[in-house]
């Protein structure tokens, strides 16, 4: 029994401080992503969410340039990007996708510049590119924990505060408008929560990959149930489970094979999310939520 347990959990897992930090940050990021993600999928804003991750990339690499932790860049530029995207606010779906794509392109260009400057300017940590793009969950300093928790609370707070009008406007903006819901304001608040959520998951699995945590568990949950409250709870559970499993597997992977190089956490999380999504598509071929987009 003991050997079986050691086979699953490599020794030193629970005692390792980076692991403990990773569990907390990862779990929090997954929960926020689960909540925000369900709304993102319902509103058909997966592309927008993805674009924000590229904005976050630019932000993170810019922050490193100024000697700050990437998280501040993720949040800072992410919030600005979210605001710009909502303000450009084209109503037609195709036009909105184009505008989103352009913002994405511009911020990717910015990211290219910042990462280049990061690499060529002395005084910046090596491997900044990898950290920002693919996550740095094992290397986050434990002093960042309160800040991370703070951001998480803000995002959850926003969603909790506007839950009902947000749900209504996500399902049908005509009905919401008729009921007096301020569509623009709600849209903007949602985008802000989305930006913070993206920032947190960027910290966990990297800016480029954080879409998986945002959209994956939510999409899986929405395949299994059509009740939003249940979907949110389910998305959180799936997200946290996948994240913790990813942390475990990544930690274990350092004991695999002869090279002892280990695989990145982000890879495991993304792979698990994808596998679960495919499984849910096989089990429930017809998606239950509002189609289109």
């Amino acid at each position, binding site marked *: 029994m003991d050997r079986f347990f050691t086979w699953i959990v490599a020794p030193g897992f629970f005692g390792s401080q980076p692991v403990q930090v990773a569990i907390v940050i990862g779990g929090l990021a997954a929960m926020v992503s689960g909540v925000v993600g369900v709304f993102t*999928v319902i509103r*058909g804003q*997966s*592309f927008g*969410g*993805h674009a924000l991750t*590229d904005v976050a990339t630019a932000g993170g690499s810019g922050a490193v340039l100024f000697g700050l932790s990437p998280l501040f860049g993720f949040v800072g530029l992410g919030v600005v990007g979210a605001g710009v995207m909502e303000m450009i606010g084209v109503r037609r*779906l*195709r036009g909105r*996708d*184009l505008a*989103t*794509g*352009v*913002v*994405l*392109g*511009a*911020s*990717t*260009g*910015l*990211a*290219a*510049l910042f*990462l*280049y400057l990061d*690499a060529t300017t002395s005084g910046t940590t090596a*491997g900044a*590119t*990898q950290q920002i*793009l*693919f996550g740095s969950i094992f290397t986050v300093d434990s002093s960042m924990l309160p800040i991370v928790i703070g951001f998480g609370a803000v995002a959850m707070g926003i969603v909790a505060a506007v839950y009902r009008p947000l749900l209504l406007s996500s399902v049908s903006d005509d009905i919401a408008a008729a009921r007096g819901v301020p569509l623009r304001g709600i849209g903007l608040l949602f985008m802000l929560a989305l930006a913070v959520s993206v920032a947190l998951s960027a910290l966990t699995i990297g800016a*480029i*990959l954080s*879409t*998986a945590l945002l*959209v*994956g568990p939510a*999409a899986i949950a929405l*395949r299994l149930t059509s009740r939003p409250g249940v979907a949110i709870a389910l998305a959180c559970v799936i997200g946290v489970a996948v994240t913790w499993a990813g942390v475990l597997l990544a930690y274990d992977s350092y004991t695999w094979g002869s090279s002892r*190089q280990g*695989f*990145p956490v*982000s*890879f495991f999380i*993304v*792979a698990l*999310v*994808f596998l679960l*999504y495919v499984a849910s*598509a096989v089990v429930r*071929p*017809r*998606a239950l*939520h509002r*189609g289109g*987009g």
Partner: protein
Amino acid sequence: MLSIVVVGDAMFSGFMVNAWTVATVVAVIAGVVGFFVVLRGAAFPAHAIPNGAFAGAAAANLLGINVLIGLGACAVLAAIGIGTLGRRGRLDVATALALVLMLAVGALLLSRSSAYEPQIYSLLFGEILGVSTTELLPVVALAVVCIAAVAVLYRPLLLSSILPEVGEARGVHAHRMEIAFLVVVGVATAMTVPVVGALLIFTLMIGPPAAARSFTDRPLAAMLLSIAIALVIVWSAIALSYLSDWPIGFFVGTISAAAYGAGRVSSAWRRSRRARTTATAAAAVAP
């Protein structure tokens, strides 16, 4: 005065010739394929397929085979996958997840090799200045294939993109057109990713056509204008990158955004002018 001449000389000689050539080819392809990407509102798949290509390039790199083959194979696979998945559940969720998985796999594979960071960087953001003459040939060949494919598909794809039901009634299967189109995007991507990077080819396929359609009403003219705008963007980006040493992707991204912005402003101005003309005309005609 003399220094400008010297710089100008260097910018157009030696290895830079390859860079200019390949950039021109990339811009033409981006303009041609991008026209349909914008017409069909396929911004998200156009972004996803290059990311699939990225994974293929990483795999090819690891296995030591020609990067272009890895790119091409994965790009086409990604294209077909997205086309098929799109039929079932929601298109954008499926695309998003496939896209991210491709990136993760690519990152994983690249992490196995020693020259990790620069490779990641060049595949994501492009490395136009490092194109050798031998690499140039397959790029040009693929470009010809791409353009020929678009020329052949032009009419039915146009019909199917604008009036899909009418197309179906006339024997143009919308789903087949979708797959064919996505495969073309895949091929276009494969040849352009090494040059401008997975994250930036998408910008070239979106910005110029989106801007072009603000300046002309005719379909074929819009395509030609997309090519022209893409060329201007890429050429300026090379020149500016050469002069400043800043990455070419930065200039491509920002100038494309500026072109799109200019297009939006022009559209809005034209619309308000048309509204004013219609109002005046209506007022002039007695009801």
